[in-house]
């Protein structure tokens, strides 16, 4: 489904519900917007990808991303900046400085939270521990159990952000490390089933913590043909996540994939390729008068295609 069609579908849904309704202006007055910005699989791409004819050459660059983020922060009242893992590995910046610069620059951009990807274990638990002081943002990880490692108590399963009274719960899920990362690197880190953990997280965040929006930072991967757990299976098997921001498979999506649950709840799944070629952006509107989707803007914009030559 192209973004165009998706927006149209959403518009129909909105029209159906607005028939019940309070005037749009009254709703709009009470609406609060939240802008979620996100990256995944940055792979130590500090500088833009060399413009030497390779794919996506000339794209990316953390100093440019900072400019974009600053611009959006000036325009939008509520911004959350999140990352779905594999911050590390891929350029000599990581090999020479061990991830220090990546964390420092992400702190500079004021990331709110990140989760761990498999390559974030590439210098072992010791290498990760050594770099954590450079990160001014928290890592959320709900399904890795670090209790038997040197990283015990260094990560929280989730973090809650409050923006103008809207509570946003953000939790993290990591991929199975066995076979992907050398055992000597992840040591006694235990991988727990993402589906079971995600269900617990939804219950905790929705019911106990009274969150209005639940975001999962996942490094599971978008979709596999095997029965290996991925973001699409997670979205189908766990009810109640609003947004899954994925990584690992370096997937470029024209628009977030929507998974509809039988109770009408929708889970969006998004991923923005890799290397910081794109900054992901999803805007949510919240309205206090409980009108579902009366204020979805339905402007039809062309689907972005990667700019490789600009």
């Amino acid at each position, binding site marked *: 489904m192209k973004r165009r069609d998706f*927006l149209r579908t*959403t518009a129909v849904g909105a029209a159906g519900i607005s028939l*019940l309704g*309070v005037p749009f202006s009254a709703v709009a007055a009470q609406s609060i917007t939240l802008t979620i910005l996100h990256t995944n699989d940055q792979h130590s791409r*500090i500088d833009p990808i060399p413009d030497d004819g390779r794919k996506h050459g000339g*794209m990316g*660059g*953390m*100093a*440019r991303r*900072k*400019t*974009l983020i600053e611009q959006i922060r000036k325009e939008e009242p509520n911004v959350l900046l999140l990352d779905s893992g594999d911050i590390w*590995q*891929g*350029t*000599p*910046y*990581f*090999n*020479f*400085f061990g991830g220090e610069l990546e964390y420092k620059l992400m702190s*500079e951009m004021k990331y709110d939270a990140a989760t761990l990807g498999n390559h974030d274990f*590439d*210098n072992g638990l010791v290498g990760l521990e050594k770099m954590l002081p450079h990160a001014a943002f928290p890592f959320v990880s709900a399904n890795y159990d670090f209790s038997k490692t040197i990283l015990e108590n260094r990560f929280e399963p989730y973090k809650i952000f409050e923006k103008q009274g809207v509570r946003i719960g953000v939790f993290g899920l990591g991929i199975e490390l*066995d*076979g*992907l990362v*050398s*055992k*000597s690197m992840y040591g006694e880190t235990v991988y727990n089933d993402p589906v079971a953990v995600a269900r617990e997280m939804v219950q905790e965040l929705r*019911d106990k913590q*009274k969150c*209005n*929006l639940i975001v999962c930072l996942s490094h599971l991967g978008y979709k596999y043909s095997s029965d290996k757990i991925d973001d699409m299976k997670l979205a189908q098997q766990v009810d109640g996540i609003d947004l899954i921001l994925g990584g690992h498979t370096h997937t470029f*999506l024209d*628009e977030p994939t929507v998974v509809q649950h039988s109770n009408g709840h929708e889970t969006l799944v998004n991923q923005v390729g890799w290397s910081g*070629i*794109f*900054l*992901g*952006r*999803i*805007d*949510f*509107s*919240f*309205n206090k008068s*409980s*009108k*579902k*989707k*009366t*204020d*979805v803007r339905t*402007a039809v*914009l062309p689907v*972005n295609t990667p*700019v490789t030559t*600009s």
Partner: protein
Amino acid sequence: MKQNTLKYIGGLLLVLSLGACQRTFVASPVLENTDVPVDKTVTADPQMEAKIAPYRQEVVAKMSEVVGTAPKSLTKGSYETSLGNFVTDLQISQSQKLYGKPINFSLTTDGGLRVPLPEGNITTGHVFELMPFENELVVLTLTGDKVKELFDYAAQAKFVFINNSTYTVADSKATDIKINGKPLETNQTYTLVTSDYLAGGGDKLTMLKNPVKYEKVGMLLRDAILQQIRQLTAEGKPVTAEVQNRVTILP
């Protein structure tokens, strides 16, 4: 009037029903612009640039050092490649001194070698792109049965490169397997040098897990590649490797 009342009741019911599920704020996504391109039209933030600059200088200086020359590029591909032969051979020659005991053969995969080595000057930067990961060399002692399994997987997967050996692919199975010219003996053990990543079952090489013996060489694969190229250059030799038709594929 009556219609307005009905509308009001309808609205009230909806408010109540949604209130029951304790979601005072209901989220609606706006998906107008979900991929913001980070391209040349965006100005780099000067403060960030200043923070990056000293790191960049150090990286550039280290990366642009020419370590060797290749008369033609060493390439990627299936079953057997010049790049695969170059790397598998140097894995043995570089490990030999540190390991001290005989190593029968060497293994790598096409996916593990990230980019080809270009024709002409080879810089440290090229070697980093070829092997960006911090993989270290390990020597595995494997049973003959596991080695047979390995060759069968190589025949089927096409991306596994094994040196010091020849085999024939028939019906996606390996037959006529020879290691150093001798037929594979399933009741014998063999020593294999590879990366710790592949030894841990990476690229689905599950038969490498739980070997008879697992010994670390004490050297990163990238350092081994760099050292081999530097040594060749010091001896006045170019960086070359030929495809030797180690694999015969039956139609």
